[in-house]
């Protein structure tokens, strides 16, 4: 079920460094939301706040109305949150299939005793999950790689596997951290198709951190532009691209004046 995300006055300090200042926005359920901004603007930090890896100094983060600020990251899956990382951390020596199945961890019932004894319901659940993971890989064009070891695959394919792993969690809120970073043009096109399909077929809210403006423009309903940890503007991708403040943040004031 697609989740609504509401941030109100989120601040994040590391000692004296203010990484995020008073960031507020609202993400509609089922929409694709972009977080953009120059390097070091605090986009990934904001992601880490939402996913519980950082604890904001103040402010509120709500998922479907439930306050999640201060929850442990391992607890966030229970709010339907799944995320990817800038550098996909896969189990390189395991098969792609095993990597994807990890995503279903919280959906598997049974404690250590049941799993050590291989009780019938545990075996059945594992088998069903294997089928589900295979189908998911097929749908994302990675079916051929299911039984390969992850380290035999390219960086771009790792990102695809990581996305499948996140989708195995059946998230209501999916955070994608620079999904297009390091991908060649053709694979970015593929990624755009994948996210579009996700949006059409699954009931999920997606937030994307990305530098690739083409991808942001193609996918997002709304964007928030961050600069030096503060919200610069909010609107559609087209509005952001033509906003003089955004241009200034990206290329600097003098150059922006010269350009105009």
């Amino acid at each position, binding site marked *: 079920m697609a989740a609504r995300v509401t941030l109100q006055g989120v601040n994040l300090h590391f000692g004296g460094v203010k990484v995020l200042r008073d960031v507020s926005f609202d993400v509609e359920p089922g929409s694709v939301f972009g977080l953009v901004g120059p390097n070091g603007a605090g986009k990934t930090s904001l992601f880490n706040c939402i996913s519980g890896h950082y604890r904001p100094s103040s402010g509120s983060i709500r998922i479907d109305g439930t306050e999640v600020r201060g929850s442990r990251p391992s607890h966030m899956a229970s709010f339907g949150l799944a995320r990817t990382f800038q550098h996909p951390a896969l189990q390189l*020596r395991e098969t792609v299939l095993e990597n994807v199945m990890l995503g279903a961890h*919280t959906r598997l019932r049974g404690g250590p005793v049941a799993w050590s004894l291989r009780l019938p319901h545990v075996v059945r659940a594992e088998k069903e999950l294997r089928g589900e993971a295979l189908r998911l890989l097929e749908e994302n064009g990675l079916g051929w790689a299911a039984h390969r070891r992850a380290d035999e695959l390219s960086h771009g394919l790792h990102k695809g596997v990581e996305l499948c792993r996140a989708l195995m969690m059946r998230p209501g809120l999916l955070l994608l951290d620079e999904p297009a970073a390091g991908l060649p043009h053709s694979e970015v096109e593929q990624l755009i198709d994948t996210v579009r399909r996700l949006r059409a077929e699954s009931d999920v809210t997606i937030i994307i951190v990305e530098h690739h403006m083409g991808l942001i423009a193609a996918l997002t309903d709304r964007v928030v532009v961050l600069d030096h940890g503060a919200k610069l503007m909010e609107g559609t991708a087209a509005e952001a691209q033509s906003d003089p403040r955004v241009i200034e943040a990206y290329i600097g004031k003098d150059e922006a004046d010269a350009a105009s």
Partner: protein
Amino acid sequence: MSNLLKKPAVRWGALVVLVALAVVLPLMLPEVANDTIARICVFAVAVLGLNVVMGYGGQVSLGQIFFLGLGSYVTAYGATNDWNIVLTFLAALVLPAIAGLVIALAAARLGGLAIAMVTIALPIVGLPLARRLDHWTGGSQGLSSRFSDAPEWTGLYHDQWQLYIVLVIAVVTFVLVRNFVRGKFGRALAIVKENEAVASSMGISPYWYKVLSFTIASMVGGISGFMYMSVVQYTSPETLAFHHSITLLAAMVVGGSATLAGSVIGGVYFVFVPVLTNAINPNLTAMLQGAILLLVLFLLPGGLASLPRRIAGLRRSSGSRPGAPPREEAATRAVQKAASKQPTRKADQ
């Protein structure tokens, strides 16, 4: 070869042959051989426990021998006080597990090397404690019990009966641990070891999984303590001396961490290598053991258990399909690991 092993018929056939061997061999072998195999079983299980927390769980534990010692003392105490044998076994399994749980609850919270530090303390504290608590432990004299002598009705010699006991316990323990380290819990332990940020984003609490793996390792250590008492029939403070813990660790590394076969090889190492090095030159025992450890670490970082895969890899890379050499693999893994930790450790400057 590996394809052949995948066929169910071949697997079942191999299993039947192995079971038949396990039943027949103890009856045919001389006493000293039976005794040696039984000791290998004991330490293979101890190494298996260490593998759960360290090989699979990625937590450095230097105190595994403490749990073996605790298990052996509980067994000896139970046997000398005429407890029911099943009850004694359960106590030798549950008490170390509880001890492990309590230690892990505190140590895993501290993170980093805390578990390693705390586990160093275990045998160091355990040894004088075993001497002092002489009411329970018999002090420096230790405890002996002949509870595992063969009953009359079996018509077996003691060594045969003892070997059957430890074989059954070892096989059952290995099967249960094998099941545990695959599937849901295996995947969770592996990702906690690899990258805690990713683990927690999957809804896996690194803390609880560290506690779980440490508790199970302690329990398996306790089981090996029961087996030790069944075979040796005597335990003393010397059983849980710190240097045995280091030898267990070396045995795990030489055998191959995070593998079941490696645990068996580790058991063989633990029993044979000290004897072997002693036979070569008693003055050089420690040095020779160190040399073996270094040699394996340099030539086969995955331990002896990785030898077949390594040979297969070499054969493949000399053929048409290039296979990545393991060393390069490890390097890329380290880089990936460091890189993936960046976004969560550091501020987005």
